[in-house]
């Protein structure tokens, strides 16, 4: 009767020892698994490290551009502009809770007050295109900066072309 507990104990000790011995034998493979694991997580993070869906970066990536350009003293959308706005509309369809502001801008070759109105016209051209492509008007606000906020600072054709624009601003 007295022996039984000791035997049980030794048996348990042996069992424990046996268990303790086994993991070291299986250790080498474990590191291999952990080295491959980071590789798989890196590939998954590069996928998630891309723009968060619905973010401004995502919008830029998916729509290609937040900006459309205009001819001198014009608010007409050319084919390049409508292609960009079509992609913007498709993105906005995917994220129906996102509201945007369209900024209208002009080059420096117009008078200050007229350019405020012209910039507004440009922003509205872009807005109306998005509305016609299924985006609710209530999701789009417009603001004109006229010639107050150029992106290109030269006084030349190239700079003026860059500054005649409507920019769809998605929250960060």
């Amino acid at each position, binding site marked *: 009767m007295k022996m039984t507990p000791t035997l049980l104990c030794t048996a348990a000790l042996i069992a424990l020892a046996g268990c303790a011995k086994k993991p070291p034998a299986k250790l080498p493979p474990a590191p291999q698994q952990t080295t491959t694991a980071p590789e798989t997580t890196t590939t998954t993070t590069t996928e998630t490290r891309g723009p968060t869906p619905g973010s401004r970066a995502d919008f830029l990536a998916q729509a290609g551009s937040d900006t459309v350009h205009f001819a001198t003293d014009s608010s007409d959308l050319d084919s390049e502009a409508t292609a960009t706005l079509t992609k913007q509309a498709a993105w906005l369809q995917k994220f129906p809770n996102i509201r945007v502001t369209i900024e209208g801008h002009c080059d420096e070759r117009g008078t200050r007050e*007229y350019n*405020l*109105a012209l910039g*507004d016209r440009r922003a*509205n051209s872009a807005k109306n295109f998005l509305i016609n492509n299924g985006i609710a008007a209530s999701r789009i606000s417009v603001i004109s900066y006229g010639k107050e906020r150029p992106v290109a600072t030269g006084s030349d054709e190239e700079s003026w072309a860059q500054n005649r624009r409507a920019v769809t601003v998605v929250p960060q």
Partner: protein
Amino acid sequence: MKIWHLLASIGLALLPGAAVAQDAAPQGPGPAPGAGPVAGQRLTVDITGGISQPMPIAIPVMPTPSALNTPAGSTDALGAQVSEVITNDLKNSGLFSPLPKGQLKPVSFPQVSAPDYPAWLPTGAQALVQGFVQANGDGTLTVGCYLYDVFAKSEMVRQGFVVKPADWRRGAHKCADIVYSRLTGEGPYFDSQVIYVSETGPKRNRTKRLAIMDQDGANHRFITNGQSLVLTPRFAPSRQTVVFMSFENDQPRVYVYDVGSGRKRLVVDRPYTTFAPRFSPDGRSILFSMIVNGNCDIYRVSASGGTPVRLTASPGIDTGGSYSPDGSKIVFESDRSGTQQLYVMNADGSGQHRISFGGGRFATPVWSPRGDLIAYTHLGGGFSVGVMGIDGSGAKDLTHGWQDEGPTWSPNGRVLMFFRTGKGSGKADLYSVDLTGVNERPIPTPLDGSDPAWGPLLP
């Protein structure tokens, strides 16, 4: 408020000191009559001639009956400063050629009302401006101002101005104004202020602040801190309030600003962009542009608020309204024909008709306070500032910069101030030009400047 009431003009029967009072007494109180029709007819400046030579004029240092210290400095020093301000005003008008300091003779206090004509004759000066600066017992200053015809040896006009010491420059401007008016027959304009947009920072993101200064650039002070983009300030006729446009909270709107209290108020509380504000001549209404669903039209609203009245309804851009001085008509710009052109309508919006037909585009029309001309920006190649008749006739560009824009009239309707933007840099500066287009000059400002608006003549 007080500031504007501190300046009083007095007949120079109030001439100080017994010695001078003897000379002045015969003139009697009230506005002193001119020296007589003969001298007045002979000595005049033709301001529309354009080619006429500036009139040689002598403006010696003004003596003081007794040198006393005031908060603005000693009356001795002030006498020299006052004559310098007068000299600059008259010189900057382009119509006068003040004698250089070296040719000026010292004037004693008794000589102020008894000029030494023989001494001035050889200098070639046709007109002579003398005066004095005196500290009064009540803490005010008196600036005495006398204009003489050197060849006719006669007095043309005299007037005295009582000012707070801090307002000594206004006494000088008032003196320059009576000299200018007496010799040109035109209204005065030197004692006036300008509100404008002070600019600094990179071209992509200029910081813009409202600032007020005297017409000659003195007494400059900022009104806004530059946190919000501000544009196109314009004085009310009373000069107590200013209307302007601000992008505060990313909402481009027209505001009224009270110069005295520093408070500002939204003019039209609607979810639309409002801009291009301007007061009516009686100060009761504000003309402005509002963009509703992409269409820009001109509206009128009571200066105290209320429901706006729509005055234009074209699908084009209608903006830049400015009242005729009698308030019966409005000149504005519209691209309803395809490009920006000038139009006139009745104050209720009826009778709209185009008045500009020259080559290029015409913009930013402003009706002259005299009612005879409309100033504009002409776009064709570069931007020029010019004037045309109220029916569009006789359009004449007065400047030729890379970008000269946004003219504003002097209170007498003979001078325009505008802003000139540099090619490439985008830096803007204030300039003035007279109606001949000959006398163009920069207006000094601490930083860059745009959107000037000339206020009315101070009382």
